[in-house]
C-alpha cells in the first residue's frame, strides 16, 4: 500500500490546534470581504433585478441618506429605548423570582409548573390582545417585548441559581450564616456570572422580537421604518435597517461581554500562572 502525500494546503488544518491571533483576525476579516464581494457580484449580475436586490454600496448609501435626511436616528433611539425599558422590567421581575425558585425548592414547586409552560406560548400570539388592552403606543410594544423574554429569563436564572455548588452553601452554613445571609452573600454572587451571561444571550431574543413589535401598528422605530420602505419598494432601506439591527445587537452583546470581564475578573484569568506554588 502506498501512502498518498497530504496536499500542502491541508497541512494547515490541525485538529483543535490554536491558530495565531494574527491569522485569526485576518481570516475573520477575509470572510467579511468575501461576503460583500459575493453579494456585490450577485447583485450586479444582469439576471438580477437591482431594485429587489441592491448591491452593498447602494445599501450603505441608503443608510447614509436615512441618517442624514430622514432623521433615522430618532427611530433607532426609539427602538433602543424600547429594548432597554422592556429588558429592565423583565429583569426586575425575573431576577428575584428566579433566585427564589432556584434557592427554595418550595417556591420552585409552586411557580415552575406555571412559568415553564408559558415559554411555549408564542409571544406574537399575544399581540392582538395587547393591541386591544394597551393600544398601539410604547406600552403595548414594551409589554410585548417583556412577554417575549420573561419566561425564559425566569427559568434560566432559576437554573443558574441551582447550579451554585452545594459545598459553598454548606460552608456558609457551618460558618453560622443564616438563610438571608446565604442568599445575599453566597447564592447571589455565586450565580451572578452565569446570570449576566443569561442576560446577554436573552437580549438577542429581545432584538428579534423588536422587529415583530415594530412591524405591527407602529409609527416609529427601526421596524416601522422598514415597513414604510417596503410600501415604496425601497429594498436598500430595508437592508440598511437589517444592518443597523445586526450592528446594535452585536454592540449590546459586546458591552455585556466587557461588563462580564469587568465584574468577574476571577473567571477570566484561569490561564494565568499561579502566584505561588505550595
Amino acid at each position: 500500500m502506498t501512502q498518498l502525500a497530504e496536499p500542502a494546503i491541508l497541512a494547515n488544518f490541525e485538529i483543535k490546534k490554536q491558530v495565531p491571533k494574527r491569522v485569526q483576525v485576518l481570516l475573520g476579516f477575509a470572510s467579511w470581504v468575501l461576503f460583500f464581494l459575493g453579494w456585490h457580484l450577485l447583485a450586479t449580475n444582469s439576471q438580477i433585478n437591482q431594485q429587489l436586490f441592491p448591491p452593498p454600496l447602494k445599501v450603505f448609501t441608503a443608510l447614509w441618506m436615512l441618517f442624514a435626511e430622514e432623521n433615522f436616528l430618532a427611530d433607532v433611539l426609539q427602538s433602543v429605548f424600547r429594548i432597554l425599558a422592556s429588558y429592565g422590567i423583565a429583569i426586575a421581575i425575573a431576577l428575584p423570582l428566579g433566585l427564589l425558585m432556584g434557592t427554595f425548592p418550595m417556591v420552585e414547586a409552586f411557580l415552575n409548573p406555571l412559568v415553564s409552560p408559558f415559554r411555549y406560548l408564542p409571544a406574537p400570539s399575544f399581540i392582538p390582545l395587547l393591541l386591544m388592552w394597551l393600544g398601539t403606543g410604547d406600552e403595548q410594544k414594551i409589554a410585548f417585548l417583556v412577554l417575549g423574554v420573561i419566561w425564559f429569563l425566569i427559568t434560566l436564572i432559576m437554573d443558574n441559581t441551582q447550579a451554585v455548588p452545594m459545598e459553598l452553601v454548606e460552608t456558609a452554613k457551618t460558618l453560622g450564616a443564616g438563610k438571608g445571609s446565604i442568599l445575599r452573600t453566597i447564592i447571589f454572587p455565586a450565580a451572578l456570572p452565569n446570570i449576566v451571561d443569561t442576560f446577554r444571550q436573552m437580549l438577542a431574543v429581545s432584538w428579534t422580537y423588536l422587529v415583530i413589535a415594530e412591524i405591527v401598528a407602529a409609527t416609529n422605530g427601526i421596524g416601522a421604518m422598514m415597513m414604510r420602505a417596503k410600501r415604496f419598494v425601497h429594498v436598500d432601506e430595508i437592508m440598511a435597517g437589517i444592518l443597523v439591527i445586526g450592528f446594535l445587537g452585536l454592540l449590546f452583546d459586546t458591552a455585556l461581554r466587557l461588563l462580564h470581564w469587568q465584574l468577574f475578573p476571577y473567571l477570566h484569568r484561569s490561564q494565568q500562572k499561579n502566584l505561588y506554588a505550595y
Partner: protein
Amino acid sequence: MIDKSSTLLLSDPPQEASREQQAVSKLYISQVCKNFQLKGHKTLCAVSSVSFEVQQSEICILLGPSGCGKSTILRMVAGLESISAGRILLDRQPITGPGRDRGMVFQSYTSFPWLTVKQNVEYGLRVNGHSRAERQDITNHFIDRVRLTPFKDAYPDQLSGGMRQRVAIARALANGPEILLMDEPFGALDPETRWQMQELLLDIVRMENMTVLMVTHDVDEALFLADKILFLSSHPGTVRERIPAPLQNSAKPTTKESMYEIPEYINLQKKIMHLMREVTYDPTS
C-alpha cells in the same frame, strides 16, 4: 430507629458509665445511626450504632474503606445531615443543625472565588456581626498562622490548591469553633504539598488548642496527625477498631521523617494496612 440487635454485634460496646464520659468529652457520640431513604421505599443503613468520644484538644481521625460512612458521620456532627438514631453532644449540648461552633473544611475547594483571601477568612465573623476592628485582628492572626500574609489580597483563583485549603482552614478557625471538622481536606493535593499541609495543620492545631475530627483515606496522614484513630468497616458503617496513637500530644513527632524512626509507628502502620485489606471488599474471594 435504633436497631437493638445490631448493638449486640458491636465489638466494643459503649460503657454504661457514659454519664461521666459525657461530662468530660468535648464531642460525645452515642449509638448514632443514619438511614438514607432510597428510591422505591428502600432504606440504606449507612451508619449503624457508632459511638465514640473526642476529648478537648484531641485529634481524632476516622479511617476506613470507601463508602463506610465517614463523611456521613462528619456531616451529622456538622449538622448538615439529620441523625436517624442516637445522640451527638458537643460540650454536652445536643446538635440541632449547622452552627459556628463546628467549623468544616471540605475536600473540594470551597473558597468563595469573588472574595479575596482576607475577605474569605473574614466571612464568618462578618455574617456573625463582629465589629470591624475585631475582624481585622482575628483575620490577620489566622492568615498569618497559615502563612498567607503576602497573599491576603489575592483571589482564590490565583492560589495553588494547597493555599486554597489553607484559606479554608483559616476561615474555619477565624470563626472561633469548638471543634474543627475536616473531610479529606488534603485529598486533592499532590504528595509533597500534603506533607507540608499536614505539618502545618499539626502546628496550628497545637497552637490554637483545637479539637479536630478528621476523615482521611491516607494511612500515613492518619498516623502522623492522630491522637486517636477510629477504624471503620462498611455495610453498615460501624467502628471496627479504636486505635490510640503510640505517642500523644506534645510527645508526637512533628515531622514525617521523625515519625518513621519510631518502631511503634511502623508496627501500627502494618496493623492498619492489614485491617484495610480485611475490610476491603474483594469480589474475587
